[in-house]
């Protein structure tokens, strides 16, 4: 299972539309979730609409959260997305076996029990990768401590799963001139050795959300190319409901 979690507090203003980029992620099998962090102010009509559309195009969900609720919101979204991803796969299986919509609700309660047991097992044991994409434009500066705390807290939850969970962290705009995004932390299963996630961050004005998303998708692709022919990434192959 692959997820991108975008944490932002405003509207994109440079390059490709992030909604288009999110649609590309989804077609690559990556779900895109978006958190709009607000403290006091709000994202404005445009910002609020944009995060909704990005999540919609990316097959994920969007939420507004204050810095205080950030950890909890990030946890909840990641967990729910895992459940939903599995639900979609199971639904497809049910549809081919039983016809109809394939919705779990169509089954009588006794039958649901077994299906949900399998889903819970998959949710706990399948391999999960989450790439965090952090908006580091100037207005995010006072929120970065809360962002880092939320990332560490997410890692703690993911480490408690039975399946392998990996996390990577990007911020945008990137450090170099003209860079859309910079990689802060490559795929890892452990953050305990990492002192600070964003040690020398230069906060800049532009918000190239779309191009940054594309870069994360590329990063996923690079990983998958290296793996092709090796171990299988598909999580459901062994299970038929």
């Amino acid at each position, binding site marked *: 299972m692959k997820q991108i979690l975008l944490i932002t507090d405003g509207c994109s203003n440079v390059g490709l539309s992030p909604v288009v980029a999110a649609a590309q992620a989804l077609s690559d099998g990556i779900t895109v979730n978006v958190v709009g962090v607000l403290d006091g102010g709000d994202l404005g009509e445009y910002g609020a609409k944009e995060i909704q559309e990005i999540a919609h195009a990316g097959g994920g969900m969007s939420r507004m959260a204050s810095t205080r609720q950030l*950890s*909890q919101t990030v946890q909840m979204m990641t967990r729910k997305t895992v*459940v939903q991803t599995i*639900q979609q796969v199971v639904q497809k299986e049910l549809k081919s076996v039983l016809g109809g919509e394939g919705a*779990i*609700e169509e089954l*009588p*309660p006794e039958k*649901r*029990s077994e299906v*949900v*047991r399998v*889903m*819970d097992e998959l949710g*706990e044991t399948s391999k999960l990768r989450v790439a965090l994409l952090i908006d580091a434009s100037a207005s995010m500066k006072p929120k970065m401590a809360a962002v880092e*705390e939320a990332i*560490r*807290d997410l890692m*703690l*939850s993911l*480490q*408690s*799963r*039975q399946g392998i969970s990996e996390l990577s962290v990007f911020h945008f705009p990137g450090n170099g001139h003209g860079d859309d995004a910079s990689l802060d932390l490559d795929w890892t299963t452990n953050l305990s050795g990492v002192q600070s996630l964003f040690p020398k961050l230069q906060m800049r004005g532009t918000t190239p959300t779309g191009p940054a998303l594309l870069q994360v998708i590329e990063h996923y692709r690079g990983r998958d190319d290296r793996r092709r022919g090796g171990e299988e990434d598909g999580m459901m192959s062994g299970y038929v409901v």
Partner: protein
Amino acid sequence: MVITGKWRRRRYRVERMLGEGANGKVYLVERDRRLLALKVGADTVDLQSEINVLQALEGRAGSRAEPFLHDVDDLKLAGGKEYPFYVMKYVRGTKLPAFLAARGAEWFPIAGYNLLQRLAELHESGWAFGDLKMDNILAAEYGHVELVDYGGVTAFGKSIRQFTEIYDRGYWNAGTRASDAAYDLFSFGVLCVQLFQEKALYRHTAGTLPQNRSPQELLKLASESPELRPFAGWLERAFAGGFRNAEDAGAAWSVVMRRIGTGGGPKKRTGAVPGWTKALFLLSSGALAAVLYWLLLGQG
């Protein structure tokens, strides 16, 4: 309002709402002159996964004479929208703070002990309760305690399904979020601190940087409460994950209870004999001696 199950056609008359959990709302209902609790879920998968836990517990718990889970079905609203629900035993009781406020803090040790016993029943079957918090505990007559809302119950070794920050071991930088017996006992410890140091606990969590949260801070708060002071050693062990399970922890808890004497306030009733009893004793033994003396002399 009457709810009729879509599959099994059982009818329930709704009396009132009892509460709201993470997975849905719970109502008090009546069927065949019997009061039951009915939980309506917003999401079929989430609710079913909770039902699966209850069914597994039902299968294993030989100690429960009365069934806990009564029915599982769906209901259809007038608008055509369907919701899953299940029906369970109705548990009467009040939350612990209200119970202790009404009956007195002297009921704390026994209520705590009974709560550990409830947890022990789960641990014995290989589950952690997970989301142990004030809202999920009901206390009744004589310190009887029941757990409600099984949405967080997680088999040992898996990641805790639901938790609430301040009770969470990970939040206090004291361990993982993987299910084990010690996870529940940590939450139990926070619950004790919350019972007697609620304001100080909230002040602490609001004003502390995440990386500085630690069980030591919880122990410091506990040491400032006269009710918790006797349990300081127990709490330290619980926060350090030092108990094998809730049964183990319950045995240690009851040792503390015996030491402080749970019947009354601090040590009075089990202490020395009051002065007037002694005086009465002396007086009556004096009288006895006199009678004996008179009898013996009379015999002679």
